[in-house]
């Protein structure tokens, strides 16, 4: 056994030396705008008071946190969801370009967000799918009995109100969310009773941090932070166009997903 390990070590050393000598220096994958700005680490000076207005870039996906135990109903619903739109057997609504809804729009494809001001409200925009959410800042309360007969209807992006907490943190509360959406790309479900809190803290002029908290007692046994994300101020303030187009998704499925058959490769068949 010892001889085998020595053989193996020698071979590995030789193999890596061979790689180093024979190959040219590998091409380096270019950094995304977010990675470049994050690596540069510029602060741009202190954060202006109560001001997030403008365009920000983030990573493809934020850091997810595991939820607390699900309720029996939550477990039942979670089992129905088969994530990964790159698998032919997935039922991820993203695979057919259904609207992300909220909070999925804040947990999936987060390369770009922007904040704008309208009378009485803040508008939060997501680059992917060109989504626009109104956050009322005029002191009104969230609607009650959403989704109940006689009450307001649930919607993809719900009803949002916001306020400032100190000089640098915008707190947004959202309710009235249609339960056909997933909360993230892992396939976690929610009920119409879901309440989401977003806390956007501008750490300095160039850096914005988001903490996203889920509160849905029908599905999760306690409230929890599902994701933290970080955004950097875009120096030239330009954004990109990213659309999920149903006809293109159908073509992708036909040309790539079905013949590549990821499920077979994973032994799921």
């Amino acid at each position: 056994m010892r001889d085998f390990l020595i053989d193996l070590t020698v071979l590995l050393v030789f193999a890596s030396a061979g790689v180093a000598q024979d190959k040219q220096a590998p091409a380096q994958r270019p950094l995304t705008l977010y990675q470049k700005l994050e690596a540069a680490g510029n602060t741009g000076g202190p954060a202006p008071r109560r001001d997030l207005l403008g365009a920000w870039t983030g990573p493809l996906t934020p850091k997810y946190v595991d939820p607390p135990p699900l309720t029996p109903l939550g477990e039942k619903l979670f089992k129905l969801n088969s994530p990964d739109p790159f698998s032919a057997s997935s039922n991820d609504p993203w695979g057919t370009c259904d609207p992300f809804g909220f909070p999925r729009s804040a947990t999936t494809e987060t390369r770009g967000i922007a904040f704008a001001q309208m009378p009485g409200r803040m508008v939060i925009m997501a680059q992917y799918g060109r989504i626009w959410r109104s956050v009322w800042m005029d002191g009104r309360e969230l609607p009650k009995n959403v989704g109940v007969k006689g009450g307001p209807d649930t919607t993809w992006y719900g009803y949002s109100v916001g306020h400032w907490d100190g000089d640098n943190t915008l707190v947004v509360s959202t309710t009235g969310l249609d339960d056909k959406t997933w909360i993230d790309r892992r396939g976690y479900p929610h009920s119409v009773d879901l309440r989401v809190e977003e806390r956007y803290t501008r750490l300095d002029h160039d850096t914005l941090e988001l903490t996203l908290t889920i509160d849905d007692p029908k599905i999760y046994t306690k409230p929890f932070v599902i994701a933290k994300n970080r955004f950097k101020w875009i120096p030239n303030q330009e954004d990109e166009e990213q659309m999920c187009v149903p006809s293109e998704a159908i073509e992708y499925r036909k040309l790539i997903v079905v013949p590549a058959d990821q499920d077979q490769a994973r032994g799921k068949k």
Partner: protein
Amino acid sequence: MKLWFIESLALLMICTPVFAHHGSTAYDTNKVVVLKGATVTKYVWANPHVIITFDVKDEKGNVQHWSAEAGTPQAVVLSGWSKTSVQPGDVISVYLFQSKTGNLVGRLNKIVLADGSELRDSALGYKEAEGEGKK
């Protein structure tokens, strides 16, 4: 000795980085398939991923119809791609990782255009440089 060698190779392959970008598990990333003299039949600049379909003759002269994907447009632009990089009728060389099913579909490593310029995939075009982390 021969057995040790095979085991060592297997170990090396296991040690190669896992490509965590979505959609890569369907492909055999240990082997690059090289297809020269490929004629582009379609170039799709779209979400979720860029697609190139092309025809290439096998060793018997039969035309094979392939489909290959690269990263999302917002990712491959960083490697020099654009909506007008490739057109139907272009003759290119294709380096790809084929589906484990053996179907004529793959994830691009890179393509080489008629003028000799290379366009690399955002995920599997930089195997040695991998390290962007889980997405």
